[in-house]
Each structure stands twice: as C-alpha cells, then as structure tokens.
C-alpha cells in the first residue's frame, strides 16, 4: 500500500551518480573546447585551486548533515592564517615554528567550533545566528590584530606548504585527498558518522535512542573549525602572507559545493563523495571558463546558474524515482 518503495541505497547511489554524470560531461565539454584543459598540468592546477575550499567543504558536510550550517568558516580561514604567520614571524627556528604555527591555528579552529557548538546546544540558538556572529567576530579580530595590514616578510620556506609538490602532486592536493579519505571513512564506517546522520534525520529520536546529541553537534562544529583552520594555514602559505581579508565569502563557495554534491540542507542525507564531486565541478567550471577567456563577471553568472541547474536536476531525479 505504501506509495514509495525506493531503497535508500539505490537513491543515494543515484544522487552520487547523477552529479558524477554532470561532472563527466563538464570535463568532456571543456576538453573539447580548450586543448590545454585536459593536460596533467592544468588538472593538477584545478585540484590545487579547489583544495582550499574543498577541505572546508568536507567539514561543512558533517555540519550540514546534522541540519546545521557554519557561516564562520571564511573568517576562521583568515584568523588561522594570521595566527600561523604570526607564529612563524616570532623568530623561533623554522623547524619548530612550522609545527607550532599549525598547532596554534588548528587549536584556534577547534576552539571556534567548540564555541559555536556550545552556544548552539546550551542556549538553543540556531546555528545560522551563532556562526553569523562568529563570522564577524573573527573577521573583526583579524583586522584588529593586524591593524588592517597583511603580515609579510615570511621565510621563503613557509610557502612550501601551500606551493610545494611531492611527486609532482601539490601539497594542498595531497592534504585534500587525505582529508577526504578520512572523512569518508568516518562518515560511512564509524559510530560518530552514524550518529551524525541520526541527529540530522531526527534529533529527538536520536537522543531517545541514547545518542548524546549535544556532544555530536559540538563535535561537528569542532571538525568544521579545525578543517577551516587547516585550509587557512595552507592559503597563508600559498600567498606567503597572513591576510585579514582572506577567505571572504568562502562560506558560500563551500555551501555551494556541499549542496551541489547532493547533501540536503535539512540534514540526514548526503555523502562526502558527493561533496568532493561538487567542489571539483565548481573548480573545473571556473578553470574552464578562465581558459576560454570568459570574464570573471560573466563567470559569476554562469557559476550561479550551474548551481541552480545541478540542484534542480537532483530534485527532479529524486522525485521521479
């Protein structure tokens, strides 16, 4: 008698598959239109360009799966980069300064996430408001701390992290791949991953099933903050400077990648692989349009249209199955 008989396994594969097909078409189209597009150099370049937002998008996927949102990621990127570059500039020997810089930044990212998580769970303020506030607080702090000026004059070796390569692969690309492998395993195979889906699916039922839902919520924001800070350090290294206006509007690029990847903003449904393809789809689009000499103004319009199209196709397929 029940109207729908679709299996969740099949529908989630379809969700992944649908966006995957769009991605393959996109790559094929650009390969035809631009001879330079499908070269190893350019593809590695795309992965490098995508890596910063893609790493954040992995964390954002966890947050959105619980039904939340984190708008503070771009500001965390900026402040984490500034903290890292400040540590580097203290004059401590570089071999010690680099791990210290990473540690300080990532601790800050985790702190920011814990702060957001505690406000959301203890005072029942919606994630949108809490992270919106944090977004301006961290952005403002970045400007206050640097007095609006970038942190320059860093040792050349600091830029290795963001610009160096290991076996021809850009280091941020490698970091991104590691982050995605771990995130995927965490989400699909660990208890924590299962709890994230349960909290996003029905938080009260999850609590009554014995899941410490508040703890799960705090943890996903910590994860998002931590990964944003990691991205922030990579970005600072690539620019070899700490910029107070780094990462502005990253939250929108990141959310776009997650949503294009098929994750529901209502929570409970989505995959890490989907987010990865979503992030790549947008990065390839930007890169391809650049190669075709499309102006950056027009690019914005096209990217927006593609986001709408991708999500619309996803909806149509889900409602027809």
């Amino acid at each position, binding site marked *: *008698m*029940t*109207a*729908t*008989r*679709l*299996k*969740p*396994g099949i529908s989630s594969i379809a969700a992944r598959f649908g966006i995957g097909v769009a991605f393959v078409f996109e790559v094929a189209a650009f390969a035809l239109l631009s001879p330079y597009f499908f070269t190893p150099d350019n593809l590695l370049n795309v992965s490098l360009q995508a890596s910063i937002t893609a790493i954040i998008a992995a964390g954002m996927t966890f947050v959105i799966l619980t039904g939340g949102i984190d708008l503070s990621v771009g500001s965390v990127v900026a402040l984490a980069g500034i903290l890292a570059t400040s540590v580097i500039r203290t004059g401590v020997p570089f071999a010690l300064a680099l791990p210290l810089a990473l540690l300080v930044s990532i601790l800050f990212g985790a702190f920011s996430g814990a702060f957001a998580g505690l406000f959301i769970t203890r005072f029942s303020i919606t994630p949108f408001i809490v992270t919106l506030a944090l977004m301006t607080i961290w952005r403002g702090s970045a400007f206050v701390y640097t007095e609006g000026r970038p942190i320059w004059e860093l040792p050349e070796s600091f830029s290795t992290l963001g610009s160096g390569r290991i076996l021809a692969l850009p280091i941020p690309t490698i970091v991104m791949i590691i982050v995605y492998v771990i995130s995927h*395993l965490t989400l699909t*195979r*660990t*208890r924590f991953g*299962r709890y994230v*889906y*349960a909290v996003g*699916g*029905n938080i*009260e*039922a*999850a*609590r*009554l*099933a*014995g*899941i*410490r839902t508040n703890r799960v919520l705090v943890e996903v924001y910590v994860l998002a903050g931590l990964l944003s800070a990691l991205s922030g350090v990579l970005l600072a290294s690539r620019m070899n400077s700490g910029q107070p206006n780094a990462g502005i509007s990253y939250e929108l690029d990141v959310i776009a990648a997650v949503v294009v990847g098929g994750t529901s903003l209502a929570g*409970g*449904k989505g995959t890490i692989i989907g987010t990865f393809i979503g992030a790549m789809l947008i990065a390839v689009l930007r890169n391809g349009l650049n190669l075709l000499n499309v102006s950056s103004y027009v690019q914005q319009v096209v990217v927006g249209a593609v986001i709408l199209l991708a999500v619309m196709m996803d909806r149509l397929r889900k409602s027809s199955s």
Partner: protein
Amino acid sequence: MQGIVKQYPGVLALDKVRFSLNAGEVHCLVGENGAGKSTLMKILAGAIARDAGVISVEGAAVEIDSPAAAQRIGIGIIYQDFKLVPAMSVAENILLGNEPTTNFFPFIDRRAMHQTAGALLRQLGEEIDTSALISDLSVAQRQIVEIAKALSRKVRILAMDEPTAPLTDHEIATLFSVIRRLKADGVGIIYISHRLEEIFDIGDRVTVLRDGKTITTCPVGELDRRALIKWMVGRDLENEYPRIVARPGEEILRLEEVEGKKLKRVSLSLRSGEILGLAGLVGAGRSELARIIFGADPRTGGRILLGGKDLHITSPHEAINAGIALLTEDRNRYGLIMQMSVRENISLSSLRSLLKGPFIDRSREESVARRFADELRIRPPDINAAVETLSGGNRQKVVLARWLNTKAQVLIFDEPTAGIDVGVKYEIYTLINRLAENGIGVLVISSDLPELLGICHRIAVMCEGALTGIVSGGDVTQEQIMTLATSRQEQ
C-alpha cells in the same frame, strides 16, 4: 466507487474495490494496516490517481483528478495529522481560502468571517472562541475546527481517518454526538478506525478490506466483534491476548515519591519478569513518568532504585547504560530515524558492541539485524529497506529490536499497539510476554483498558500526576479502573 484498481511497483494496492455510501450514513472502513484503506481515501480525495474504476456521486460519474476537484464535488477528508495553520485563529482556519470580503474593497471582512465560523461551530454544538489561535486549542478542539472547515465547504461526503486516536473518552463522546448531528443533516460519513468497539457504537454499515480487496460490506448489526476480526485477519483468532506465562521474581525497579513536571510523588515497584500496566486518562502523567525514569525529562524529587541501587541519571544515554529502555509513544516522531534503514535503526543504540577497531563491523551489524528481523517477523524481511517504507506494526518491531539488542532489564512501552492492526497486536503481546519470561521487568502504558487487563500482572492507575491505586487479579473490571483514573487525590 466501483472496480477501483491501484497498482504500485510490486504491489497491487487496490484490486477492484467497491465501496458505496448513502446520505446520512456512517459507513465504517476497516482492515489491517496495508489493506488499502488509506489508498482508497487518497483516491477519493484526489491526492493520487486510480488506474481503473469508476467513481460516481448521486448517480453521475465524476472525475476526481485533484484535491480541488474533490472539494468542488463536496468531498472532505479529515486526516490524522490535521491540516490547520497553528499561528492563525479558528475563524481564519475555518474559512481559509474562502474568506468573505467587504463590499467595496478586496479586504477580508473580519466580522462576517467570525460570524460564519461561529455559526458553523454552533451547528456542531460546540462553543469554541473563533478568535483563539489553533496552537492554543486541545487536539479534540482542533478536530472540531477541521470538521467545521469541511462544513464551510458544503461537504456531502466526509471521511475521517482514525479520528479518535488522540482523544480521551469524554472527547470521543463529544465527537460522536457531532457525527450524529452531521448524519441527521444528511452528510455521508466514511469512518476509519482500529478501535473495533467504536464501529459498533457509531457505524451503520461496515466494509472490510483485506490485501486490497473488498471482503464484505454488511450492516453493523449483523456482525459481532469476533466475526469482524475474522474478516479482517482472514483467520479465526482464538484469543485476542496470549496467556500470561511469566512469573514475577525479585524487585528490580523501585520509585519512591518521584516528582517532576506534572508528577506528584509517585511510588511504585516493578519486579523482574513482571508486566505492570499503567492506566489513566490522557494527561494523567503516565508518559511523563516514563520519560523521567528514562532520563529524558528531569526529576525534581524522590528516588529511583534499580536493582536496589540508587539511580542517578540525567539522560537517555545513561538510562540505556543502566539497563532501562523506553519505546516511546508516537514512534514515527520519537522512535525512528525515518530515512535510515531497518538495520541502522536496530543497531543505533548498541553500536558500541558492534565495533571492530574504530569502525562498525558491518557483517556483525547485518547478522544482528537479520536475526531480529527473523525473530520478530519484520516485513518485508529486507534489513536494508528504509523504515519509512514499513507499516506501523513493523516499525514498532524495529524499535523493539533496537532495545532488545541493548540487553535492557527494564523495558517501558508507551502505547505499544496504537495504530497497529489486530494480527500484529497479538505478536507484540506475545513478545512482551516472552520478555517478561526472560526476567525483564516490563511497564506498559496503554489507553486500551481491555489490553491492559489482558496482558498485565498488575495495573497501576494514575490521575492528574498522582498514583491513585494498584489493582491485580482476574476479577478487576474496567469500571474499577476508570473510577481510579478519575478520582482526584485530596491534598
């Protein structure tokens, strides 16, 4: 309605169903979950399209291809979850989409609106303030508003899906008098309910559906309860309740003057292997008591002892670790993660025991789920099906399986058989019995008194947050329990 057919992928939901309704008649539609009642109603409401068959109203064939078309013909449906806007007033809801306007400007004529709404409510014999917000009304009042809303659209056919499920006995009596009034006005009423006694109370004719087929249509007077169940289930049920075989042992759970939201010093003792019923009217504090024992709501006073030791729990997480489990009322909202599979819902509270290193051991998880699916006869037997595709009874079994896998010593059932059909009810009773046999202390909250009398060793009765009595033995009557359930504690 004649020869109605509805085919879903893999299931024939309706197989040449016929159903007729006379003006001024209450025609009951009964059948187990999955028999096709809701599908038939959805077709009548224009919510889904039929594959074959004819629907005629007053002798003329009609095409109902949308909810708007159903409304034009004068068909009104009152669903279990009401379609009212909580933040709007009673009058605004009743005339939603039909607002009267003032003569010169397209403004809403508020006075006319309240007058019309008030007149409709009075026609139903009910006094409800037309400017009150829906969110401030009781469930029973909301239902009356739904009926008034249907009346404002001049319904000739009114279908009600399980209208009494959320109501107290007194409210049911009110609803029935409203139904009788509508009947006298010539409205034809289709009445769907799992509570068989209501059918004998209010029905004129009854149609039984089973597996998408019309089994029979006959006047209610020609049937008795037993015959009706036989038609529904397709076989003779020897007894509605299994024989109690469990023997109560040592005391396992003890409440001493427990206080909390709505609760007044409740003291109670539960033994292992005992099935203790908890009776009372809606709002008596039974679910609140269950939630406090389970750590879902805070306890403000008194002691709870589990196995003789003081229990200090502040969350369901701790309760489960201590060995207490709660099958909540409204399993869809509080029990299940709908988009998750049967397997994931079963393992949700016992993942810790299924770990291999940092990962969930998928093959062990599957074997646990499969074992329970077999043991509890979960249908379909596909452990990777989403629970949202399961019927009510099977969903209940999934929740039960989850708790069984936690090795709980105390299991609390809150309305375990609400909305579940007769055949599966018997299975659930048998399971409760078997749990008790295995030494688990079982607390059953139910508004179905015959059910409590049929399956419990003892029955505790609550009224307005206080315990008013505990009865046991075979000679207890429903009247005795009702007296306790309505006896106010003198403070």
